[in-house]
């Protein structure tokens, strides 16, 4: 320590929240007497430090005593660190020279022994004082924000986000893997609980996206590479070859009419219907241009056919078309890549894939859709028999330790919707097998009551098995659903004609790879993690990367739309500011001490560390660095230092916490 710091210590009562357990007066006096050698020149306690009067008290002392460091012993830094730092800033003290010590969450609220809590508070303050001596004044890092935005995923959430930003006058690149935008919502017939026609409300939005002057729509495309940092990302996008020239194609549809090759459509029709080898996934597709599925096209397999080319009136077919790599510069990114439905085959005892008349929810969506393979007729797998009894199994793959422990949030309402549609179109008898009915949205509970009034049976119990092993009279040709009705305690065998598995939602198969590509975190399940589960639901830990919709966790359409809009609003705010201040908690490498051993190089998940082959040294890119400090700890030469959490700060804090900085302490140690 070259020059002696002047430190002020401020102990908050927080009403009785702290003072009720910790003897704040004693703590304050103790600090003044015992931490003098550390540089404490003033120590005070006050009823509410965070009040404007409390803050003024600190500011006055900074001026009068010429304080160079401030320690506030109060609540958690997550609550009021910003408050006290701003107070210091107001008195022309660099905000990072203020240290918060939590004696509420870590002492008064969690301990009952008043003496022990008081002693612990002293130690914590002693640690804070020892640490603050080594705090350094820091300035935030400013980087400019590129006004364009990348939206990944053209489901309803991505569509909403893209439109919000484009309407505000900024460029959006919307990237979608499938040939058309629309996502899962385009596959649905009705939406709960209003029973709006899904296509009727979605299609206008899709058209708007397709024709918006500020939206560059890249379908049948995937992200190749992401580089850069908030405000300045460079993204490479692979635009897969459609084999159709978009400039000349009019979307007239002659090509797919004439194409002789039928293919089972496992994506949009969930395997319930066919498409051609050249196709648009559905009539309202945006963009309207078809793609040739090269794996199934006769020309690509056998080298002959070219029916589409022969009939195309505008000569738009281009068999030689190649993938194209497009590089775009964007300031921010929204990931709205959605979900995969749970694969019901995994629950073998439910018989999906083995028993013909067991359907998944997505199959049923197509079955009930007027534009679907049966024209909206709800029939068995034979394509004609109308079921008389239908069983709907809830929580398939959800709330189950063997598969996913979480609740998929939408299945109850989806099941109720199915029950209603079956009732309305077939008049069949309907059983819902549920664990709990979860209907927390607006109008959802009312919809449930409507179903109860329609005479749908509700059996509370988790289905054990769906089988074709009939035994009793009347069961012939039926599926038997075996379940315990937990409200009556009875085992039931319910014979049905059709079973619908209300499959849960799962993260996309490649969610972890996407998270890695964009440098954000992903839960063990695979859902991407938001910055704060309550207060920051669409931002992520990586500045400039936002998430919206089911990529963050299962949610219904209104919630997905809200998140899309919220992410857009967050980004618009950033674009308006033109530049962004980054937290100055960063690592840096002292070049003369770095020997280029490269231990740190792949310790960083944000790729913030570059190795210069010429100089044989590594360097941290401060804009990419997120400040975790892992490289600081990993550097064998001690050549990396981290602001805000330097070795000196922590080592000194340890001594402080152990009261080694106090002279009288030595006497109390037993010899």
């Amino acid at each position: 320590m070259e020059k002696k710091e002047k430190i002020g210590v401020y102990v908050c009562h927080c009403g009785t929240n702290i003072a009720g357990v910790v003897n704040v007066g004693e703590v304050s006096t103790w600090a003044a007497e015992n931490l003098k050698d550390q540089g404490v020149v003033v120590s005070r306690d006050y009823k509410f430090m965070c009040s404007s009067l409390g803050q003024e008290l600190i500011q006055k002392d900074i001026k009068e005593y010429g304080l160079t460091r401030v320690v506030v012993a109060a609540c958690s830094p997550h609550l009021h660190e910003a408050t006290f730092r701003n107070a210091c800033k107001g008195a022309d003290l660099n905000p990072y020279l203020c240290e918060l010590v939590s004696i509420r969450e870590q002492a008064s609220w969690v301990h009952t022994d008043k003496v022990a809590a008081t002693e612990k508070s002293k130690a914590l303050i002693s640690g804070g004082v020892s640490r603050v001596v080594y705090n350094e004044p820091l300035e935030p890092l400013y980087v400019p924000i590129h006004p364009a935005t990348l939206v990944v995923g053209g489901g309803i959430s991505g569509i909403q986000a893209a439109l919000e930003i484009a309407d505000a006058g900024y460029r959006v690149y919307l990237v979608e893997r499938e040939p058309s935008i629309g996502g899962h919502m385009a596959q649905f017939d009705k939406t709960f609980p209003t029973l709006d026609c899904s296509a009727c409300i979605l299609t206008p939005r899709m058209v708007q996206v397709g024709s918006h002057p500020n939206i560059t729509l890249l379908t049948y495309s995937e992200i190749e590479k992401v580089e850069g940092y908030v405000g300045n990302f460079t993204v490479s996008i692979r635009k897969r070859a459609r084999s159709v020239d978009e400039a000349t194609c009019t979307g007239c549809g002659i090509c797919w009419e004439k194409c002789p090759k039928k293919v089972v459509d496992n994506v949009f029709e969930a395997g319930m219907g066919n498409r051609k080898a050249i196709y648009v996934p559905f009539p309202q597709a945006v963009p309207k241009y078809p793609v040739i599925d090269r794996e199934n096209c006769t020309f690509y397999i056998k080298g002959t056919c070219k029916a589409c080319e022969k009939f195309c009136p505008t000569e738009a077919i281009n068999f030689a078309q190649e993938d194209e790599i497009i590089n775009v510069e964007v300031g921010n990114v929204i990931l709205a890549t959605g979900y995969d439905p749970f694969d019901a085959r995994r629950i073998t005892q439910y018989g999906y894939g083995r028993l013909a008349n067991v359907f998944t929810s997505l199959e049923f969506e197509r079955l009930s859709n007027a534009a679907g393979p049966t024209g909206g007729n709800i029939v068995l797998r034979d394509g004609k028999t109308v079921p008389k009894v239908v069983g709907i199994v809830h929580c398939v793959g959800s709330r189950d330790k063997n598969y996913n422990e979480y609740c998929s949030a939408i299945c109850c309402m989806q099941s109720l919707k199915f029950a209603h549609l079956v009732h309305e179109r077939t008049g069949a008898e309907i059983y819902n097998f549920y664990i709990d009915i979860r209907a927390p949205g607006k109008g959802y509970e009312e919809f449930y009551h409507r179903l109860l009034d329609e005479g749908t049976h509700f059996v509370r119990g988790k289905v054990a098995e769906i089988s074709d092993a009939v035994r009793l009279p009347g069961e012939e040709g039926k599926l038997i659903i075996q379940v315990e009705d937990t409200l009556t305690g009875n085992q039931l065998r319910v014979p049905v004609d059709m079973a619908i598995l209300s499959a849960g939602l799962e993260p996309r198969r490649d969610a972890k790879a996407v998270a890695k590509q964009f440098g954000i975190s992903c839960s063990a399940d695979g859902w991407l993690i938001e910055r704060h589960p309550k207060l920051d639901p669409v931002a992520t830990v990586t500045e400039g990367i936002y998430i919206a919709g089911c990529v963050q966790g299962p949610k219904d359409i209104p919630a997905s739309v809200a998140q899309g809009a919220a992410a857009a609003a967050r980004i618009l705010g950033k674009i308006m500011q033109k530049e962004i201040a980054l937290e100055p908690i960063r690592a840096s490498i002292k070049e003369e001490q770095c020997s280029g051993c490269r231990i740190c190089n792949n310790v960083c998940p944000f790729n913030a560390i570059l190795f210069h082959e010429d100089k044989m040294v590594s360097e941290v890119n401060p804009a990419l660095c997120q400040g975790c400090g892992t490289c600081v700890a990993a550097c064998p030469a001690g050549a990396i230092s981290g602001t805000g959490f330097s070795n000196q700060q922590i080592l000194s804090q340890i001594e402080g916490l152990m009261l080694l900085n106090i002279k009288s302490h030595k006497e109390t140690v037993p010899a």
Partner: protein
Amino acid sequence: MKEYAYFPGCSLEKMAVSYHLSALETTKKLGIKLKELEDWNCCGATTYFYIDELLAYTLCARNLAIAEKTGLDVVAPCSACYKNMYFTAAHLKKDADLAEHVNFALEEDNLQYNGNVNIKHLIEVFAQDVSAEEIKSKVTRPLEGIRVAPYYGCQIVRPQKEKEDVEQPQFFEGILSAIGATPVNYPLKMRCCGGSLIISSRTAALAMVRNLLQSAVDSQATVIATACPMCQVNLECYQQQVNQEFGTNFSFPVLYFTQLIGLAFGIPPKKLGIGKEFVSIAPSLLRAGQSKD
């Protein structure tokens, strides 16, 4: 040559001697040696664990300790023996206190169990340790056209060992396909045969047997294949009582899977213990076996 420590269990000494014979014959054909454990004792069967748990564990552990000395994996053809030994080993691994108690008792016999034995059911040997190709290569008389109901019973896949499918397993079907037979879709293949309920609650057990037989008839099988002496006895020997009780008319052959494999391998039926059953097997089955001769 693969070698296993073989724990036949009490049933195979008498009642299920045909299982014993066919197991030895078929494995021999595949180049597998089943080396019978020396001085083995009863596994405790299904009931002993409900009478004195500690002694029941000790009983099983004694066999495990003997097996451990051989350094081989243990194979049990009986599902109950397999299950008892498997979960005894699992419990001893998890519960150090139990292991200490058990080893204290085993000391009397100069034995000790250290938890290093793998326990397999005989059918696992055919399903996992031997490939379908190896089985196919030994088939001289494929059981073409024979529809077989693969009856797993309730103990082979319980408890779940790792991540294998315990709800709709397919390995039994795989073995049957390998010998040229047609495994039928047998929806009750995992249901209980009644076990020892046949003694304590006869009617209930007979109803369970009836369901299993009816399901086999409905799936148009010609024979039920089992992998457990208890299942075999319940399904076969009680058919008359089922008929009396429910007015049915079952006469349905129930064979050990090893007997079917033996037929396909061209082993003379007598060597497989065929001819000792209560319900004679359909002549068509024997013919299928011999037709390629």
